[in-house]
């Protein structure tokens, strides 16, 4: 491994003790960083030097480091998951940056994602939205045959595209309104498009939107920032699908229209 290409960087990192205290930027030097390192590995190196100096290491979320778990976050130089498209922070390599660059690292900023410490934010609001309706109820009984229910390929593909959402919260971080619409709509769509999701389709969308509102996320202005920044390239089409289902559920469905149908719920 050559050491000639190693980079020296200046990091402006958001340090915050906990949700109650005010945070501020602290500047660190990251020296001798290999361009082949991932962004998180670079932070590991910085943290090691901080530990050696008896300083508190920088807290940040991470888990699989393979771009599939949705745990890493970081708002890097004005972009969630950094400047490159369709990757998470763990998949971002230091060769994306140039020697001597100053990198500003911030946590996701949203009232619904309070800072736990430094760059780690509490994203359990997403869990509560999922728990409100992001599931399919399955009856017990005999094992059904595989592919017993025919699903058109376009529908299966679209539902699967929506299901690739890893719930990282980059959409919230990117949105000027800190809106969770892309996440919620992806979760609503992935189930609502499939036959197995039909029985709860309209109660699901209402429950999940109600929870989204209760968590204090903003509204959608259709700017498209979420779609542009999503590491899994979830489409804004999902938002329109969800709106369609939501208005339909509130205004035109059987349980919305007739008292005796609603009382069964």
């Amino acid at each position, binding site marked *: 491994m050559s050491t000639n290409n190693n980079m020296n960087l200046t990091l402006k990192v958001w340090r915050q003790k906990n949700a109650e205290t005010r945070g501020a930027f602290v500047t660190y030097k990251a020296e001798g960083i290999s361009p082949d390192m991932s962004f998180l590995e670079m932070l590991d190196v910085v943290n090691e030097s901080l530990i050696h100096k008896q300083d508190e290491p920088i807290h940040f979320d991470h888990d699989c480091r393979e771009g599939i778990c949705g745990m890493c976050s970081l708002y890097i130089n*004005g972009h969630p998951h950094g400047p490159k498209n369709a990757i998470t922070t763990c998949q971002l390599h230091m060769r994306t940056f140039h020697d001597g660059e100053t990198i500003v690292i911030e946590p996701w900023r949203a009232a619904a994602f309070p800072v736990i410490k430094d760059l780690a934010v509490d994203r359990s609001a997403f869990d509560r939205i999922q728990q409100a309706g992001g599931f399919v109820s399955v009856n017990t009984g005999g094992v059904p045959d595989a592919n017993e229910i025919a699903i058109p390929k376009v529908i299966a593909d679209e539902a699967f595209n929506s299901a690739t959402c890893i719930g990282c919260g980059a959409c919230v971080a990117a949105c000027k309104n800190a809106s969770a619409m892309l996440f919620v709509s992806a979760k609503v769509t992935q189930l609502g498009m499939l036959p197995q999701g039909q029985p709860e389709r309209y109660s699901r969308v209402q429950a999940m939107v109600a929870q989204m509102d209760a968590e204090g996320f*903003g509204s959608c202005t259709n700017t498209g920032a979420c779609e542009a920044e999503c590491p899994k390239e979830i489409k804004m089409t999902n938002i329109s699908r969800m709106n369609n289902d939501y208005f339909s559920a509130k205004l035109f469905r059987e349980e919305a229209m007739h008292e005796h149908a609603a009382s069964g719920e």
Partner: protein
Amino acid sequence: MSEFKQTFNSSLGKKLIMALTGLFLCTFLIVHLGGNLLLFSDDDGYGFNMYANFLTHFPPIEVVAYLLYLCILVHAVYSLILTIQNRKARPVSYAAVNKSRASWSSKNMGLLGSILLLFIVIHMSDFWFSYKYSHKIGFKEYRTDLATGKTTSVDYVPASADFEKSASTENNIEIVRVKDLHARVASSFSNLLYVVFYVIAMGAVAFHLLHGFQSAFRTLGWVHRKYTPVVCFIGTWLFAVIIPLGFAAMPVVYYIQSLNK
């Protein structure tokens, strides 16, 4: 009632109201521009003044007009509520500037809308309020010789303060007396500052609708592979180009005409 409130107080419900009122205001722009093209006819304001009189005295239009004013208010109030909620959703802002692909107009709807609200207040107080609720606007008498079709006009001072409009025919000459809003338009549009303000406001209309028209359809959930491009085309060319240009042409043309007088 509580379910009704729940539907329209949810974040999606508020956006539904924004979309529906916004689209209604868009349809009004087409009608407003169509009627106001009469300003370009060279008849000393006869057509325009008759049109203004018709608008303010035809009951169905008056009903729709009040619906329109309500829509403007609801659109503005809801946008304020949504903006406050959206700001609350991000109490600490980012230090690094976001260079995202989101269009400028989509991120500045509030600013553009505020310019438009200011414009609407000034515009309505100058023309609509003066026309309907004040005596600041004079009258004109149009005499048309039915044999030759030639029309002459003179200022007219009505005997009664309640006078609105009259039309009669004497000796093959048609005499129409009507409030002269056209003169008011001409005098307002001879003021350069006023003209500049109008042109800026029409720029705000263009950018507001460049995003707003297609965004309303997205909010309603009407996204379609075949029809969404049509919506975007109409939103861009009709609502963000032709209509603002048509409206902006009025003060500009009248200002240039006032220089030649």
